[in-house]
């Protein structure tokens, strides 16, 4: 940790990076969905409530928000709220599955200032991608990307969650992004939401992680949202702050207005409060008990004797929590294998008790509805 990251860990007046999920509705059912999205929640914020949040973010000088979901474009007031954000000086970076990017919406998005798009693709071919995101989604995303290019949207981000099945395709993603003049963003797969169940089979192997680390080190221009900081224990740090930002520099506002420490911990243990409370979001950010606690110095716990603790900070809180490890245990993907050992010990002692999500908006899987099993890969 540097002097700066020490200070960042103590908290800021406003978050650096705020994720705001606009709806739990989604027309897809990706097997790794961090928010178990599918059905809209009846208590989702109204247009007026959304605008009141934007007003407060503008007042707190939050420079931009990362909009996610669910699929944010499914909100009927999507453009109205995006335009309101831009008008208030709150930049919009939104993540989409591309299903609603038509020739027309692409043109509308291209005409707006301060709007960035991140489009999700989880395989460089139909077989790899559709196994995770659902049948037909590869073709649909490519169509969306074509619309953005035809509308002269400019540089968008192509976002890939790294799994055991797709991590070896990184060169092909790089080439595909280049073909569209897009930026490539690779994100760590955490066992959150529906990923709690699929992570154990789908997260990259140790050997794949080490290869990925070297690949990223050689390509500082590839964006990662700082998500692979646990790999910095391998030596030279990856670009970024290299710390767990939960409740310190990042947080999440969910579609019903609940505030969580990060987008990967939709669980009551990590719920700091609600925007409906007195003082709104600012009060939660500045003085909630949970965030205050997360800003206190962390106990290295089991990692105390490891010479790399300063480099990785013990890894990702969400990943530990949802695999059943205590928060002061090593990251399950610890590059020295300490996390695998810790998980194996849990199994040997009667099995890991894995938390489930506190909020699940997955659609029920209908009888006879075709879902591609991950195990066929």
């Amino acid at each position, binding site marked *: 940790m540097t002097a*700066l990251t020490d200070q960042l860990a103590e908290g800021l007046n406003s978050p650096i990076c705020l994720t705001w999920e606009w709806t739990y509705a989604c027309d897809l059912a990706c097997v790794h969905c961090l928010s178990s999205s599918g059905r809209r929640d009846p208590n989702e914020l109204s247009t007026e409530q959304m605008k009141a949040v934007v007003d407060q973010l503008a007042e707190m000088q939050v*420079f931009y928000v990362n909009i996610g979901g669910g699929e944010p474009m499914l909100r009927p007031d999507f453009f109205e709220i995006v335009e309101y954000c831009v008008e208030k*000086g709150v930049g919009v970076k939104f993540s989409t599955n591309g299903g609603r990017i038509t020739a027309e919406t692409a043109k509308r998005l291209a005409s707006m200032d301060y709007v960035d798009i991140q489009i999700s693709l989880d395989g460089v071919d139909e077989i790899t991608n559709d196994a995770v995101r659902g049948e037909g989604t590869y073709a649909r995303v490519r169509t969306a990307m074509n619309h953005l290019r035809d509308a002269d949207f400019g540089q968008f981000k192509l976002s890939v969650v790294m799994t055991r099945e797709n991590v070896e395709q990184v060169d092909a993603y790089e080439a595909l992004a280049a073909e569209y003049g897009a930026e490539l963003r690779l994100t760590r797969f955490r066992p959150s939401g529906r990923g709690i169940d699929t992570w154990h089979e789908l997260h990259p192997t140790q050997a794949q992680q080490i290869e990925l680390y070297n690949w990223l080190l050689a390509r500082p221009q590839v964006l990662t949202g700082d998500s692979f900081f646990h790999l910095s224990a391998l030596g030279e740090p990856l670009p970024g702050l290299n710390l767990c930002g939960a409740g310190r520099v990042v947080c999440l506002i969910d579609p019903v207005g609940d505030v969580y420490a990060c987008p990967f911990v939709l669980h009551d243990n990590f719920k700091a409060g609600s925007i409906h409370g007195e003082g709104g979001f600012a009060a939660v950010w500045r003085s909630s008990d949970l965030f205050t606690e997360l800003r206190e110095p962390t106990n290295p716990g089991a990692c105390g004797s490891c010479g790399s603790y300063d480099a990785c900070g013990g890894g990702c809180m969400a990943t530990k929590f949802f695999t059943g490890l205590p928060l002061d245990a090593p990251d399950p993907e610890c590059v020295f294998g300490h996390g695998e050992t810790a998980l194996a010990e849990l199994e040997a002692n009667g099995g890991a008790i894995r938390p489930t999500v506190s909020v699940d908006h997955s659609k029920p899987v209908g009888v006879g509805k075709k879902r591609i099993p991950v195990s066929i890969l």
Partner: protein
Amino acid sequence: MTAVAFDADRPWRLHERVALRPEPFGALVYHYGNRRLTFLRSPDLVTLVESLNNQPSARAAFDAAGIDAKRWPSFEKALTSLAAGDFLVLENAA
């Protein structure tokens, strides 16, 4: 737009699309144009950056902000990197 190399003898100011937010460690700076985010890692650096556009040169701003000459090289380094990121532009730039 290509960033111009920093020269402490010339007049500089924050780019018009750059916003600065005070924080306990100094300030966070965001460029709405190129979407870059950076940190001003000391309150003195924040004071200096904010005073730039009233001064005929960056060097004059060092003086006006009362910064010890021994610390100038480190501040000059910080301003050089801000100019490279297009956060700072020359006074007469568009």
